[in-house]
């Protein structure tokens, strides 16, 4: 598929998702989100869809730049591979950020949604979201180098994040066990932080931010270790490619 076609389909999918959840949210009358976050269900859903672009691609963040047709040629240059991955992904990070802001703006225009804006908190949460995405990206690539596929790890993160990541389904309406499981997802902290930054009834974000910051740092450290392990593993096995 060409880059233009891929970009077009990505935009269409994102807008379609935004519209679906917006309509769905508008149809809801009573909402847990109003009590917990001070925003309507529609506002909850579209903010989840819009800002999901920042964290939901975390695992696959570096696949394009650590891909199998290029990785060996990059690894024989003196460049630091981790720096190379992060610097090469700046454009994608910027695109995800710009896409999120555009979708968020579009949702306000289309549905007349109202939010409160706690900009410093929003910036902090987004920054931590990007940091945890980088950590997840290193983990994803390390996993891929060793196991040559990422189906299992992707499934764990992406299949579950919509449900227990507080992205689309408010954690408060989930059964107790799933609520506990959601605390293990980095997405939970990210999306909860976003709702605290945009909702009318802001509780104290300090505890959430502290946990999210520690979580993001842990993800980054695990990611660095996983990538190093992955690279050592392929240096032993000689199999950089995964076809």
């Amino acid at each position, binding site marked *: 598929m060409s880059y233009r076609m891929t970009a077009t389909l990505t935009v269409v999918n994102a807008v379609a998702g935004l519209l679906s959840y917006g309509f769905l949210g508008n149809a809801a009358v009573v909402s847990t989100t109003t009590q917990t976050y001070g925003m309507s269900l529609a506002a909850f859903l579209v903010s989840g869809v819009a800002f999901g672009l920042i964290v939901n691609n975390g695992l696959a963040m570096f696949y394009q730049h650590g891909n199998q047709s290029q990785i*060996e040629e*990059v*690894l024989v240059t*003196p*460049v630091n591979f981790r720096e*190379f991955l992060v610097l090469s992904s700046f454009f994608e990070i910027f695109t995800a950020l710009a896409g999120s802001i555009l979708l968020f703006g579009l949702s306000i225009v289309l549905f007349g949604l109202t939010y409160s804006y706690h900009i410093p908190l929003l910036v902090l949460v987004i920054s931590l979201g990007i940091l945890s995405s980088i950590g997840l990206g290193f983990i994803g690539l390390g996993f891929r180098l060793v196991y040559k596929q990422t189906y299992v790890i992707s499934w764990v993160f992406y299949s579950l994040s919509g449900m227990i990541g507080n992205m689309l389904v408010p954690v408060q309406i989930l059964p107790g066990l799933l609520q506990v499981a959601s605390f293990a997802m980095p997405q939970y902290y990210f999306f909860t932080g976003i709702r605290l930054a945009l909702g009318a009834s802001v509780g104290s974000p300090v505890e959430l931010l502290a946990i999210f910051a520690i979580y993001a740092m842990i993800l980054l450290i695990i990611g660095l270790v996983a990538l190093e392990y992955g690279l050592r593993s392929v240096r032993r*096995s*000689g199999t950089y490619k995964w076809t």
Partner: protein
Amino acid sequence: MISVRHDFSGRTVNEPKIILNHISKAFARKAETGLLRARRACRAVLKDVTLEVESGECVCVIGKNGSGKTTLMRILSTLVQPDNGQARICGFDVVKQGREVRRRIGVMLNAGDTGFQPRTSGLTNLEWYAALYSIPQKEAHRRIQRWLQDLQLADRGSDQIQSYSSGMRRRLALARALLSDPEILLLDEPTLGVDPWTMEQIHKQLRSYVMLGKTILCTTNSLTETRALARRVFRLENGVLSESAINEELSC
């Protein structure tokens, strides 16, 4: 006997540019897959390989497909770690001082036509790799133009890579290996799929590179290539390296 001493940074100087000292490598492979289990086996690819290449020398390693040539090059390129033995380039250990080694080598891998972005031009691809070597933009542009010219790609430099023939991609991969003006050039079957006229052109460029005092280690399965390039030739067969009989012919 080669005298060995260390400079202030601990780097060994006055030693051959490339040293392989009793290198062995075996790869695990999935020999048979049963219903419930996979039986793993090991395949020795390099067995106790020892080789030294002096500064300003071009050495060829000749061998059949699957003889271990590519593994040898991948060890020297820091892509693969040997199981036993030590490999050094310009006095640096390829395992422990990989980054220092990579600063001094230009590599053309066996599948060297990959690693290019197919929808961007040859020129842009080379600029991208030049940035990885931290070559200043102006200098990078000068070198790229030079190598595109010398490797007869100047008129196609602005075309997308996907329109290149396999021979053109090999030449572009060679240009990429030469971009950083490396002390050591590691070439894994550099003229694979290249027509005889272009092959002669590439050999001419490589001979001039050696004349500048640079060192080349090249693997090939072509006797023509070894005769055109090498001062010394080694034969790799089933992972065992030995001096080739061609050496007597070359010394005449």
